[in-house]
């Protein structure tokens, strides 16, 4: 009984893997003009958040839609105001149902150079509802390997 208790204790303690990490994403924060709190505590100031143009979301922010069949990418405007325009959005088909993230990144860079598009380090990633979470997490991790796609904002509601 005692040996059983000790071995159970030891096995449970030794089976916990300590190498956990995270694939991060962000929710966009709307800027505000309120004065700092009366005692001077301001999360924005204390955490030194950058509110320069590169860190805001507007119609020129890169948007990538992940569906079951393909990636679609373009600016945020092309999926909102210019939704019906077929010339300002592009797609990369999945190969054997596997998303081609490397091809997507290279194509986006080529498109950006051709259109003189300035990357803001933010990308809006909009998966459709049926995308399994493991696939989504792998796509996010693969995108984040490049500096140009460091900050990912997960979106919903566009499709």
């Amino acid at each position, binding site marked *: 009984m005692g040996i059983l208790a000790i071995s159970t204790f030891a096995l449970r303690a030794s089976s916990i893997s300590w*190498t956990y990490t995270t694939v991060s994403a962000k929710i966009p924060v709307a800027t505000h003009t309120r004065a700092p709190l009366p005692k001077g*505590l301001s*999360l924005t100031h204390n955490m030194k958040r950058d509110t320069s143009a590169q860190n805001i979301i507007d119609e020129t922010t890169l948007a990538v839609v992940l569906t079951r069949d393909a990636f679609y990418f373009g600016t945020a405007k092309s999926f909102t105001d210019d939704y019906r325009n077929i010339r300002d959005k592009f797609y990369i088909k999945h190969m054997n149902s596997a998303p081609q993230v490397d091809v997507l990144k290279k194509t986006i860079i080529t498109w950006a150079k051709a259109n003189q598009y300035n990357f803001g380090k933010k990308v809006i990633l909009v998966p459709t509802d049926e995308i399994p979470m493991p696939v989504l997490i792998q796509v996010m991790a693969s995108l984040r390997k490049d500096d140009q796609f460091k900050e990912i904002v997960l979106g919903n509601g566009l499709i």
Partner: protein
Amino acid sequence: MEKNNSIARLESLKERLKTNITWFPMPALISFTLALVFVGHLLVNLNPRLGNPVSVLTLETNQEISSDGSIWISVGIDEDEILITTNDRQTFRWEKDTQDISTLNKFSEYLERRTNQIIIESAISKVITEEQLYVTLAVDQTLRYFHLKPILNVLAKNGLDYYGFEIRDIINTSASGEDKQAGRL
């Protein structure tokens, strides 16, 4: 007479000392077992992953191992309900197909309490870091994005804008690590 009594007492003492006492190790065994059980409970409280049925994705990312945020949440499916457990052992449930965040009110109130608590502790200690309001989501591999949308909306509603999906990292010790192809749909 007195001599006979002394001899009788000595004899009975000798007999008593010769008899084995079978209950002798029991107090030590009971104390030892109780100590093991209490320490086992303490270990459970130190790591919220212990005993958690959620199976997170295993992925090689070649990035620095990041520390957990203050708020760790596991998201899994139990029969037809989404089951949430937190690192302070709170649990929440709702129907897995719901998209209405009003059904997540209790979870939202919990997040609001935790956020307020963290902010107050930061103000008192005069130290604030991004990790303090970082939410780690340990998502089971059987879930789809559809199931996560209400949770992300609740995070946004409570002002938690920095979150991440937990993965089990593979430490690559080979000379060159190639990118792995993303999983199939």
